[in-house]
C-alpha cells in the first residue's frame, strides 16, 4: 500500500483518538485508558513512518520554519510521553498492574496540565504541517480552507476561554471539570473547535515564516 495513504490514515486516527481522549466524561475511565494506550502506539507508529525526518535531525540548513517544526516536535514528544507515563501510573483498569510508580498527587497534577499542553502542541503541529499537506491544492481552495479554519478557530477561542483551558495548562485549575449534563456530541465538537484554534495558529505561523523565508533568499 502507498505509504502516503498509510501516513494519512494514522494521522486521521490520531486526531480522532485525541478528541475522545479529551472527552473523559464521555468515555469514562476504562475506555480513556485504552484510548491512551492506542494513542501511545499511534504516536510511536507515526514516528516510525516519518523516521526520515528523525534521521535528518541536525543536518542541513535550519530556516525559521524548520526550527519551529523541530521545537514543536520536541516539546510535543516530551509532553505527550510525560502525560502517558503519569496516566499509566494512575491506571486503575488497563495497565493497573504496572501503576503506582509515581505519587498519585504528582501524577494527577502533571497529567492534567501536560495533557492540555499536548493538545495545544498537537494542534500547532497539525497547523505547521498543513501548508505541506495542502501544497498541491489550488490557490482558491487554499484560501477557502484557511477562511473556514479561521471561523472554526474563532469559535474555538471562545470555547477555550469559556472552558478555562489555559487555567489547566498553567495549573490554575487543579481538577478537571466534567459537565455530565453536556451532550456527548457537543463535548466532541467543542474539542474539534478548540483544536482548530491551535491548528490555525500553527498554520498562520507557518505561512508567515515561509513568506519571509522566500523574501530573504
Amino acid at each position, binding site marked *: 500500500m502507498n505509504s502516503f495513504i498509510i501516513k494519512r490514515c494514522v494521522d486521521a486516527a490520531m486526531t480522532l483518538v485525541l478528541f475522545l481522549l479529551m472527552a473523559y466524561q464521555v468515555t469514562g475511565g476504562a475506555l480513556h485508558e485504552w484510548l491512551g494506550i492506542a494513542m501511545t502506539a499511534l504516536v510511536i507508529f507515526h514516528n516510525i513512518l516519518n523516521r526520515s525526518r528523525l534521521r535528518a535531525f541536525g543536518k542541513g540548513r535550519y530556516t525559521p520554519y524548520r526550527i519551529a517544526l523541530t521545537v514543536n516536535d520536541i516539546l510535543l514528544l516530551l509532553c505527550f510521553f510525560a502525560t502517558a507515563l503519569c496516566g499509566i501510573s494512575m491506571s486503575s483498569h488497563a495497565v493497573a498492574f504496572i501503576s503506582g510508580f509515581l505519587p498519585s498527587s504528582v501524577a494527577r497534577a502533571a497529567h492534567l496540565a501536560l495533557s492540555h499542553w499536548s493538545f495545544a502542541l498537537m494542534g500547532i503541529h497539525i497547523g505547521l504541517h498543513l501548508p505541506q499537506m495542502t501544497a498541491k491544492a489550488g490557490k482558491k481552495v487554499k484560501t477557502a480552507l484557511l477562511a473556514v479554519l479561521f471561523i472554526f478557530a474563532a469559535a474555538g477561542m*471562545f470555547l477555550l476561554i469559556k472552558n478555562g483551558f489555559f487555567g489547566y495548562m498553567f495549573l490554575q485549575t487543579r481538577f478537571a471539570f*466534567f459537565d*455530565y449534563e453536556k451532550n456527548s456530541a457537543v463535548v466532541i465538537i467543542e474539542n474539534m473547535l478548540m483544536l482548530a484554534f491551535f491548528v490555525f495558529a500553527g498554520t498562520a505561523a507557518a505561512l508567515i515564516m515561509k513568506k519571509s523565508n522566500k523574501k530573504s533568499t
Partner: protein
Amino acid sequence: MKKITALIIAFVMIISLAGCGAGNGSEPAGEATSDADGSGVTQAGGSDGTQPAGTEGKKILTVYFSSANTAAVDAVSSATPSVKNMGSTEYIAVYINSKVGGDIAKITPVKDYPESYNGTLDAAKAERDGDERPEFRNLDVSPEDYDVIFVGYPMWWYTLPMIMYTFFDTYDFSGKTIIPFNTHEGSGDGGTYNEIREFEPDATVYDGLAVRGGSAEKSDEDIDKWLAGLGY
C-alpha cells in the same frame, strides 16, 4: 501576506473580546430543582418571593465533612470565621447554618488524614480505589431526627470523599429532604448530587451549590441567592 496579517489582526480582536467574558468563582446550580425519583415533580424555590410550603417548623441540620482538623463548635463560636483556621467546606457550612438556623455537626474521621495536602490526596486515592468505607466518630446528633439536612463535602478525586459514602450507608433519609453543597477546585459537583440520589432513593435530593474552595470567603452572596431560591 496582507491576507494573513488581516486574519491575525481580526483574530487578536476576537481574543480580546472573548477575554471580557471570562472568569467565574462559583457555579450556583441554578434553580433548586429536585426530581429524585424521576417522577417529574420539581420543587423550586419561589422566584416570585413566595416560600415553598412548610419550611417553617421543620428541624434543620447542617452536617459536613471538611479536611481541616477543627471542631464545629470552635468554628461556630470563633468571632470572625475565616478559611485560615477552618476548611472551606466548614466555612460554608457554618455560614449556611448561621442563615438557616438549626443544628450543625461535623463528620470527623476516626483515623486522621495526613497533614500534608499531597499526603491526603494519596490517602484519598487509595481509599477510593479500594472502595473503602472509613469510619467517622459518633455525631453529637442523630441526623435521621431532622426533616431537612444540608450535607456538605469537598470533592475528592472527582467524587464524594469515601467517608461520605459511609455517612449515607449509615443513615436512612427516606422521606427527608437533602440539600447538598460542596467545595471543589475545578470539577464542580462532578455529578455527586445524582450519586446522592442513588444512595437515598426515597429522599428528596435538591440540586446543590458548588463553590470554589479558594473563593469560599467571597461566596456569601452566591450562597444567599441560592438559599433564597430554596426559600430560606
